[in-house]
């Protein structure tokens, strides 16, 4: 099912939760909505689910305008962050709920519940109550309950955030696999960029109620068109710079006394906001990398990496880099890091 959001705005009192958001989710796509907390991503999901109605704008499921349809009329099944399993119902009853509401014959309900139990590896647990399940099992029941009604779209609101890190990784893979097998359109809200990058076919970035950028994970990571995206995705550090030279999508930028090569994004000003992808920096020179020299303020050993905080020569802004295969340099010493072009992004300031 293709989903279209057209010019949606939503206010809560004086708070502008969403400002003129438009986007399109393709049929069968795993679409992630990524943003910091309070950015409006959950509001957008709730509007898609029909729990909130937009003040302006339209929502289309396929060609059907569902803007003001109630949640029960949309066929958009939701999986909540806390899973919202009904404690007074067994696993079976939880999963069968949506089918019984649709007044399907008993045999059909049973058949479909069995299918969902099998799909999610929940066989044998059907008579348990939610409190008798582990976190991972509860999560699976919530997913089974949503999938069993064969929804037009599956809406997921940070469904993995209540799980421990190991289980989260495991279920991340399972969820993606099931979505692909069933070919169902899924919209996944998260503030975890790694999760979004790993799972999504495409993702949207939202900040302060505004849609910032939409793209594939690779586009978003490698070629962020908007400084917010550049800063939000990955480990980053920013500085102000002066444009020395411009041309062909690249620019030479002075950061203090250092001159480095950066990807230029609509750079038409003298001054630039420079975003460094901190973990792309190297400790040794490489072909095409720009050197950046500065004085170390703090350095920390972090296992596979070393975190180095430094102030570039002739600058006052502290930058952070993560370097592999390196001893922590002592504070006060001079250090040079080497930056690839895709590790430095310049935006007009």
């Amino acid at each position, binding site marked *: 099912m293709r989903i279209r959001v057209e010019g949606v705005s939503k206010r809560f009192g004086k708070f502008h939760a969403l400002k003129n958001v438009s986007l399109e989710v393709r049929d069968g796509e795993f679409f992630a909505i990524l943003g910091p907390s309070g950015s409006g991503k959950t509001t957008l999901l709730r509007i898609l689910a029909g*729990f909130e109605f937009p003040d302006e704008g339209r929502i289309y499921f396929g060609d059907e305008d569902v803007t003001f349809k109630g949640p029960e*009329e949309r066929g958009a099944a939701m999986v*909540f962050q806390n899973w919202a399993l*009904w404690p007074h119902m067994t696993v079976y009853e939880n999963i069968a709920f949506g089918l019984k509401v649709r007044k399907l014959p008993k045999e059909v309900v049973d058949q479909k519940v069995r299918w969902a139990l099998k799909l999610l590896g929940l066989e044998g647990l059907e008579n348990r109550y939610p409190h008798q399940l582990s976190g991972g099992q509860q999560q699976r029941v919530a997913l089974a309950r949503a999938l069993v*009604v064969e929804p037009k779209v599956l809406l997921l609101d940070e469904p993995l955030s209540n799980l421990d890190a190991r289980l989260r990784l495991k279920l991340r893979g399972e969820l993606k696999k099931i979505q692909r097998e069933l070919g169902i359109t899924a919209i996944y809200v998260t503030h975890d960029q790694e999760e979004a990058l790993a799972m999504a076919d495409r993702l949207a970035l939202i900040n302060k109620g505004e849609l910032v950028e939409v793209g594939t994970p690779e586009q978003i990571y490698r070629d962020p068109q908007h400084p917010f995206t550049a800063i939000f995705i990955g480990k980053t550090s920013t500085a102000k710079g002066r444009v020395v030279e411009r041309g062909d999508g690249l620019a030479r930028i002075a950061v203090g006394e250092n001159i480095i090569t950066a990807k230029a994004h609509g750079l038409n000003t003298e001054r630039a906001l420079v975003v460094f992808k901190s973990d792309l920096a190297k400790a040794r020179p490489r072909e095409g990398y720009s050197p950046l020299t500065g004085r170390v303020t703090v350095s920390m050993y972090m296992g596979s990496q070393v975190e180095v905080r430094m102030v570039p020569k002739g600058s006052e802004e502290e930058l952070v880099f993560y370097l592999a295969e390196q001893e922590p340099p002592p504070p006060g010493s001079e250090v040079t890091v080497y930056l690839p072009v895709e590790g430095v992004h310049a935006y007009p300031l």
Partner: protein
Amino acid sequence: MVELGRRFRDRVALALFLLPTVYLVTFFVFPVASVLLGLKDFDWGLLFSPFYFNLEPVGKMIEIRSFGPRTFVIVKGVDVGVVLNSLINSALVTLFATLIGASVAVLTALFDFPGRRVFIFLASLPLLVAPFVNAYVVKLLYGFNLQGNTISFLLKSLGFDVVVGFTKLAGVTLAQTLAFFPIVYINTLAAIMAIDASLIEQARNLGARGFTVVRKVVLPLAMPGILAGATLVYILSLEDVGAPIVFNFKNLVSYQVYEFFQEFTSIGGVGAAAALCVIMLVASLVPLAVVKKYLSLRYYAKLSRGAPRPFERMRLGRVGMAAAYLLVLPVLVAAAAPQLGVFVLAFSERWVGALPQGFTLGNFEIIFSKPGVFRGIVNSLTYAAMAVPLIAVLGFSAAYTVARETVRGAGALDLLSTAPLAVPGLVVAFGYFIFLHSVAPGSPLDPLTLPAAVLVIAYVARKMPFTVRAVFTGLLQTPKEMEEVAESLGATRGTVLRKVVLPLTKRSLLAGLLLSSIYVLSEVSVSVTIGALGGDVVDPNHAGPITFVIMRLIQAPAFGGGAQPQAVAAAMASILMLIEALVLFVATNRLARRGQSLISV
């Protein structure tokens, strides 16, 4: 467009909003507002006569007299006119009750010491309400009596021939303080129990100990509970007629309004009664408005984010032990004694002087053998049976609407459904009388025609808040997502309510209904005013409920049968208290969840 779509979708939500709103506006807001109708042609100048406001106090606070070897210390209080008496008395009762209640709560919740459970038991005992009889026993124990009261008997056996007795306004203040302080206790306790252990542990970790923890951390955090309890005590004291009737002190606002219903004439007629109701209303609402920011029902929202981690109690030091046993314990014993005394009186042949005389079961027999007395029980049970289903439907609807904010105006319903707790029952009773008697004279809704109908209507309005609050708390502890996920799976709001909300909140609903029903059974203000309009207790077909019968027995009408009428009242009150104890136990121990205090405001 938005509104149209939403309105259509939320027909059920709209119904849930309208049911309690229409009821409360019709049977609470209108009646209370129509008190103002009674003010027509009233000359406010009358209120400034010495009878109402008297800046030259009459009488002596304490009188000491000697007759031979015997010394009489009579604590009377002074009379400064009806209105000032009421305001001063309620302020004093609130002050004393808050001091005692909050101290006991801090002591028992925060500290461990030998005998702690006894303290808790004693402090909880007066929560069992024995209308009128409690005040009567207070009078027997501590009241002024030429033959000596129980206290003076104890003093005499210790060798002091002195009679210390409370009478008049001082007696009212004493009886109300002893009866009401547990309300502050229980509210403070609930607030303290809601404090997460980490907050107290952090204070101790930083070096604070004992009293500093109490002063700097516990009391500020428990302040909403303390203020809620104090405000409730203030209102209860203002509207109480039990103690004034027993101590025969008529110069109080509550007594004057009560008396209006006896003859439909008070000293100043309808106008004066209406004016006194307005004063009582304003006097209740002003303190409420002052502490309002602490008193929101939203207070419970804090508790809903998972129950707080319980904290370890601290060891009580030597000074603390001394204070607990020498200061707090005597007060608790003094306050629990009347409650126990009610049971003693219930089994006594006679108790008018210092000590009860004779043991009998006769008082209980009379309850069942005297038709007029038994009628009260039948009436009460009938009224409760009619009121409870209504409270269930309306209370659940209101709680759901408020908790889920399903419609605009949910906030107003929040206020509306809590308001009956803050409006003195006598004002409600007087309002019903004026409103229904003028809107529907001669119809079944006219209290003079069918007081029973009006009683049921009034009980529903006045005691619904307990159910609303219980369900509201239950709903806050039930994530909204449980409903939303059902909707997203295709369930309509009706189905969601039936299959998800009701099963998840039925325990809270049941707990609320149990509380509402015991408060219906022990309701006084409306019962003894409107309830008196259907004939006196000697009439076997009167319309009065249990509390009305108890009051008439305390007032000792010519009744025959040989038994002391107050002892029969005590027998009835004992049964009432046992039911209350049972219900409170079931509601709080079996039905409520942790961190939820059902009897607090």
